[in-house]
C-alpha cells in the first residue's frame, strides 16, 4: 500500500534501496524518522552527506580516510615492511580490533569474480604491485574464505612470489571458544588439511 504523502512515500522508497532493508523495515524506519525532533533528522542527513563529501580513498592503501595518506599509512609506529591485503575497509576494522597487527594494509575493494565481471583490473592489484619496494618484506593475504577470495589469494601469490617476497596467508580453522566436538565437519576437515608442523 502507498502512503498518501508523497514525501513519506519517497523516503520509504529510498530507504528500501539500502542493502538488507525490505519495504516493511523501510516503513518502520520512516515512521521512526517522522517522530524524531527536526535537529536529529538534520544530523542524520548531514552525517550522510558528510561521508560522501569528506571521505575518500587513501592514495596508498585505498582504505577510507579523510586525510590522505590515511592515519595508518602515515603513522611512524607502523611496520612498513608488512602489508596485509584485505577485501574491504570492514576487514581492516576487524583486524585492527585485535591489536595484533602492526604493519600496513592494502584494501583491494573486492575479490576476483568473473561472474560479476570483476577481474584483476577492477580491484587494486596494480596499486599493490606499485607500492611494493625494497622495504617490503612480507605480504599477508587475508581474503574471505570463499572461492572468490581463494582465487584472489592464488592469483596474487602467483604475481608476488617471483618478486622474492615472503607471501603468507591467514589460516582457516576452528573458531576460538569453539569446541572441537561441536565444530562442523567441513570446518574441521579444512583445519586438518591446513595443519602445521610444530
Amino acid at each position, binding site marked *: 500500500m502507498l502512503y498518501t504523502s508523497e514525501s513519506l512515500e519517497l523516503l520509504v522508497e529510498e530507504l528500501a534501496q539500502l542493502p*538488507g*532493508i*525490505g*519495504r*516493511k*523495515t523501510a516503513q518502520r524506519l520512516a515512521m521512526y524518522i517522522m517522530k524524531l525532533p527536526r535537529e536529529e533528522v538534520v544530523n542524520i542527513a548531514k552525517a550522510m552527506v558528510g561521508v560522501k563529501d569528506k571521505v575518500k580513498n587513501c592514495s596508498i592503501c585505498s582504505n577510507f580516510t579523510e586525510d590522505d595518506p590515511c592515519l595508518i599509512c602515515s603513522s611512524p609506529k607502523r611496520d612498513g615492511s608488512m602489508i596485509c591485503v584485505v577485501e574491504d575497509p570492514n576487514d581492516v576494522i576487524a583486524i585492527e580490533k585485535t591489536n595484533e597487527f602492526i604493519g600496513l594494509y592494502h584494501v583491494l575493494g573486492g575479490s*576476483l*569474480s*568473473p*561472474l560479476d565481471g570483476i*577481474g*584483476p583490473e577492477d580491484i587494486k592489484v596494480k596499486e599493490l604491485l606499485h607500492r611494493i619496494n625494497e622495504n617490503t618484506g612480507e605480504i599477508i593475504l587475508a581474503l574471505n574464505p*570463499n*572461492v*572468490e577470495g*581463494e*582465487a*584472489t*589469494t*592464488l*592469483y596474487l601469490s*602467483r604475481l608476488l612470489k617471483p618478486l622474492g617476497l615472503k607471501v603468507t596467508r591467514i589460516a582457516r580453522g576452528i573458531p576460538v571458544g569453539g569446541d572441537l566436538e561441536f565444530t*562442523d*565437519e*567441513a570446518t574441521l*576437515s579444512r583445519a586438518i588439511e591446513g595443519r602445521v608442523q610444530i
Partner: protein
Amino acid sequence: MFIENIRLKNFRNHADSYLECGDKANIILGDNGEGKTNLLEAVSYISLTKSFYASNDSVIVNIGETIFQIEANMVSDNGIKTKIHIGYDLTTGEKVYSINNRRIEKFSSVIGKFPIVFLSPENSNITFGGPAERRKFLDLVLSQSNQTYFEDLSEYRKVVRHRNKILNDAKFHKNDPIALLEPWNEQLIRFGSRIMVRRRNFVNEFQEYIFSAYKKLVDLREVPSMEYEPSFKTGNSEKDEMVFENFKTEIDRKYKEELRLGSTLVGPHRDEISFKINGLELRKFASQGQHKTFFVALKIGEFFYLKERCRENPILLLDDVFSELDDNRAQQMLLLIENLNQTFITSTNFDIFDKVLSFGEKNKKVIVRNGKIAIS
C-alpha cells in the same frame, strides 16, 4: 528418526496445517492439486534446509502472504527429541532455521541430521534419463551422509560457473585467459578430485547395498551392478593422489577444446554412473520391469546406506508412487516398507491401503483438501 508432529504456516497452499504423525505409515490422500506433495516438500525442507523443487524460497510462500513457517518435533532412534523451527520472510529474504530454539548459523551443518529418502515417478529418471539424473542421485545420498562432500560440491559448482564465464568471454574476445584461469583451475582440481574420490568410493561401497535390496525383490539370476565412469581415466589404483594428478594433466590436455567451446569439459560435473544387470547396461538393454526393480533397489539401498552413515533411520517420502501400481504390486510394496521406518505416502487412490494396513497410533490416514488436512 521420525516426526512426531509438524505444522505448516503459509507453506505453499497450506495456510495453517497441523499433522500429528504416526511413527510408521502416514497415508496422505487427496485429489490432484490439493496440497499433498507440498506436505512432503515441507518434510524434505526440514532435512535439506531448502526445497527439493524450488530453487527460490519466495515461491514457497503462500501467495499473498509474506512469511512461511515450519514447526516440527523430531524424535531420534534413541528417543531424543528435537524441536525445529524454520521461518522465511519474503520481504527481507531472511531465513531462520533453529534447532531447540537455537539459531543455526551454517545450514549445511543440518544436512544429514534428519536423513530422508524420496521416491516419486519423476524420480525414476534415475535409470531412464541422462547422466545428470544419476549424478543428482549420488549427490543427494552423499551430501546427506557427508557434510564435507556437500560443501565441496557447492564450492565446486561455483568454481565451474566462474570458470565457464572466463572461457566463454575468451572465446568471444579470442584472447588467451590462462593467467585468469589458473586460480580457478587450482580450485577446480582441488574440489573436483575430492568429489571424484568420494563418488568412486561410494560406487564401490554401494554395490552390496543394491545387491542385497535387489535380492529381496527378484531372483538372483539377475546380478545388478554399478560403475563409476568419470570424464577422464583416473586409474583404478587405490591412490587418491592419482585422481588429483590425472585431473591436472587432463585440464592441460583439454585446454584448446575448452577455449573453442567456451566451457569446462573436465571434472565430476561430467561424470557418468552406469547401472548394469548381468553386465549389460540398464539404459540400453533392460525391460520396463527391470528398470522399476532397479529403481526400487536403489532407493532401498539408499535407505540402508543412509541409516548406517547417519546412524539414524531415514524418513521415507513416497510421492504418488502408489497411484501407478496395481493392487498386487501396491501390497507388496507396502509390506516391504512397513518395517523400515516412518513413511509418508501420498496417493489419489483411496482404497488400496485399507486392505493392508490397520490404522491407529502407528499408521495414520489423512485427507488433504485445498491446503487443509482432515483426519480420515
